[in-house]
């Protein structure tokens, strides 16, 4: 074992690998920060560029892009309420309010360290528990995915904040939006208004861009991005280490969210966005008195950040141990691995152990590279807050429209972003929370598709659900959490 590790260290410790990792991370952060450019696109576009590289630098570049792109969206989510990637939308619920209180630096620092903690914990799990986790994750069938979606939806009680009714209205709206598009079983087109572009459902990224970025600019109008003026006078210095109080406060939340994120990421079909939203909801559900979630609570930044980088490592578990990708980015990574002569799967660890452990080392270093890059570029990013807010607002709106267009190259998606921008303005005016709507849009399709698949498998009997222990346990926990949330609400009200 020692011999294997020494050999792996030799593969990782080279200047080329380090440079490629840093370069990949920086490129990834830019891609992640731009709405409309995703981690999947970045990795797919850079794969052909790695043809001429040795295998280790090539993998370092791609892993760097993956880690950087997943993190990069959070920077813009915190500073401009413009999530660059779906996963980073969960960070803005508390990250942006914290920035508006003049603590942009603190928010970025908490985000960067939580993401690094999540990634490192996830990679350690990957090293030591890969066989166990992959067995657990692969035991997920339609029943388990359905139960997971229900569990996620049950947290809406916690996400709703002041008015459970308004939260429920937003969630039902999200579920209705999730029914748009082709029926997952029969293929019948539903509510597509004659638009071919709605066949695959409401495009999620344009909707997200509209709901946050476009709505933010519309609401702020001549004032520029809301509160930017106050924030620019606040503390822009990004501390290298988060304040000790924050570290103590968020430590356990970050660890718990990393574990959650890793397991969710390992399940095929559930990626960073679901991990981040679930972790945020769980953190919020367990909030103690005095924690003001939605108004700049540090734990509300730590939980989704830790979970989504945990999910990156989690997605590597089935990829490396079984050759099965956990999400769309890892599906492209499989191709890149094969291109360089590595066949991911059970034989990788047995026959090419040094290489396998070197890849794990690169994943771990990728998260460290994100931490280093984010702390060094944070000053540059916060400087944008001092720019004329009108220019920032115009830039964000132009970029949002273009980003919505670019994701599929369809002009209709700009109209979706615009419509969701108006919806976002209306929801903010009426005091309707955005989180339940988004969560329902993410999970609605997953719940429906898996529920119906399960019914097909069990030839129409829902009792099948209770022969699957993991699914049954998740459903019981969801029921308990809804009841507990309602009771707590009644006790307070």
């Amino acid at each position: 074992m020692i011999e294997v590790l020494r050999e792996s260290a030799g593969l990782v410790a080279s200047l080329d690998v380090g440079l490629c990792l840093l370069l990949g991370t920086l490129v990834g952060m830019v891609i992640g920060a731009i709405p409309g450019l995703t981690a999947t696109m970045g990795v797919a576009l850079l794969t052909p560029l790695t043809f001429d590289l040795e295998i280790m630098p090539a993998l370092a570049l791609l892993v760097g892009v993956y880690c950087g792109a997943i993190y990069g969206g959070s920077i813009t989510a915190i500073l401009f309420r413009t999530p660059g990637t779906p996963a980073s939308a969960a960070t803005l619920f508390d990250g942006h309010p914290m920035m508006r209180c003049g603590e942009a630096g603190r928010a970025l620092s908490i985000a960067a360290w939580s993401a690094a903690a999540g990634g490192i914990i996830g990679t350690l799990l990957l090293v030591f528990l890969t066989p166990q986790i992959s067995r657990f994750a692969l035991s997920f069938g339609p029943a388990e995915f359905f139960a997971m979606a229900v569990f996620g939806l049950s947290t809406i009680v916690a996400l709703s904040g002041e008015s459970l009714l308004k939260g429920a209205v937003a969630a039902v709206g999200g579920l209705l939006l999730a029914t748009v598009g082709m029926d997952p079983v029969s293929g019948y087109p539903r509510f597509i208004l004659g638009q071919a572009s709605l066949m695959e459902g409401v495009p999620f990224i344009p909707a997200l861009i509209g709901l946050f970025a476009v709505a933010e600019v519309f609401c702020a109008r001549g004032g520029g991005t809301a509160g930017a003026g106050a924030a620019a006078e606040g503390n822009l210095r990004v501390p290298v280490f988060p304040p000790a109080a924050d570290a103590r406060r968020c430590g356990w939340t970050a660890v718990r969210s990393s574990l959650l994120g890793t397991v969710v990421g390992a399940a095929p079909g559930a990626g960073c966005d679901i991990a981040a939203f679930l972790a945020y909801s769980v953190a919020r559900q367990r909030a103690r008195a005095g924690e003001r979630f939605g108004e700049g609570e540090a734990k509300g930044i730590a939980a989704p950040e830790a979970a989504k980088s945990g999910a990156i490592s989690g997605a590597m578990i089935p990829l490396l141990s079984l050759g099965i990708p956990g999400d769309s980015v890892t599906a492209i990574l499989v191709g890149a691995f094969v291109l360089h002569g590595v066949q991911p799967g059970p034989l990788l660890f047995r026959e090419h152990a040094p290489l396998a452990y070197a890849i794990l080392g690169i994943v771990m270093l990728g998260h460290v590279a994100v931490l280093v890059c984010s702390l060094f570029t944070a000053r540059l990013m916060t400087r944008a807050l001092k720019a004329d807010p009108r220019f920032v607002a115009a830039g964000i709106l132009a970029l949002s429209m273009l980003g919505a267009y670019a994701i599929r190259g369809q002009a209709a998606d700009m109209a979706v972003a615009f419509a969701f921008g108006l919806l976002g303005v209306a929801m903010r005016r009426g005091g309707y929370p955005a989180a339940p709507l988004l969560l329902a849009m993410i999970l609605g399709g997953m719940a429906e598709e898996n529920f119906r698949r399960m019914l097909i498998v069990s030839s129409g009997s829902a009792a099948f659900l209770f022969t699957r222990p993991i699914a049954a346990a998740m459903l019981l926990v969801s029921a308990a959490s809804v009841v507990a949330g309602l009771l707590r609400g009644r006790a307070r009200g």
Partner: protein
Amino acid sequence: MSGTAGVEPGPPGAVSGTSGTAGGAWRLPVLCVAYMAVLPWLGFMSSTALFTAAMLGAMGYRRVGRALAFGLALAIVLHWVFAVWMQVPLPEGWLG
């Protein structure tokens, strides 16, 4: 547990912003609709530059030359990032 995710009270500085007029709220949405209508016909570069400059104007920025220059610079950067680097085809129209 207090507070509501994703909903914030209206920013205190919004009304006292540089445009400050009560009727300003509809300007940016109208510009967006105009942009979507013009984009396939005029092309990405020119319509984005005009759209950005018009937005600056709508928000009360009165230096026309600078606004146009900013719009053009933004359009060039975005064109480079999306079309050249990420190879996303952008509408060309008759002015590019």
